[in-house]
């Protein structure tokens, strides 16, 4: 069963649950450094059993934080930044835009002030 992106609240839950674990965050960091790895490659630098890594990868995949692409019979794991970007947009991006708008209003105000002198 494929997840449904970040449309529904329970999918957002899945993203936060997936991130609430140091090993899973480490897996994402490893993929950020070197994207597109097989299970074997991902196991190599980790002090974890293959079963444990598999379990973590399934959780990351369900949260859509990892996208899977096949190269022949090899399953390659890629970091998918979309859910994190959607979270960023929802809780950070829109506030940042207000701040930038305020700055640009301030600049405009100051410039108008200067012109009238």
């Amino acid at each position, binding site marked *: 069963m*494929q*997840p*449904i*992106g*970040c*449309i529904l609240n329970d999918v957002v839950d899945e993203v936060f649950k997936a991130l609430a674990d140091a090993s899973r965050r480490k897996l994402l960091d490893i993929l*950020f*450094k*070197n*994207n*597109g790895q097989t299970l074997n490659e991902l196991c190599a630098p980790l002090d974890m059993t293959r079963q444990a890594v598999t379990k973590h990868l399934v959780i990351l995949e369900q949260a*859509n934080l990892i*996208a899977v*692409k096949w190269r022949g019979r090899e399953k390659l794991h*890629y*970091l*998918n*930044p*979309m859910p994190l*970007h*959607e979270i960023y*947009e929802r809780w950070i991006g829109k506030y*940042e*835009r207000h701040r*930038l708008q305020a700055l640009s209003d301030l600049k405009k105000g100051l410039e108008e002030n200067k012109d009238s002198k």
Partner: protein
Amino acid sequence: MKNPKQVYQTYIRATPKKTWDAITKPEFTRQYWAGIANVSDWKPGSKWNHVAKVGKQEEVWITGEVVESVAPKRLVITWADPDDLKDQSRVTFEIEPMKGMVCLTVTHDQFKASSTMAGKVAWGWPRVLSSLKSFLETGKGLDVFSRS
């Protein structure tokens, strides 16, 4: 990043046809891709241009060739800055229908070793794709490049 191949995957409540049109029709791309138009007849071998309006003038910001085009499922194009055509990469759009929605996967790869494009598009793709999703689901895109 050792392997600069980038994969972006998002689930959108839309039909494959609407998703395809949103990527290939300039009147739609303008509404969510910072006013930029993707212009081509989308036949394999044809050119495509990513055209921005700067003042009253039109400027081609990205150009390339259509490699594969299977509407509404799969589109493969090459991607380069017209001022630096040697720095060419490849973009693949895959639209997979699911119950009541599509899974859109965008893969950007085949970057040249010295390419500066990978860094630029890593900034842009998540913004463009979340705006595309918003456009298809709500009829309104996001202000994608507001922080550029």
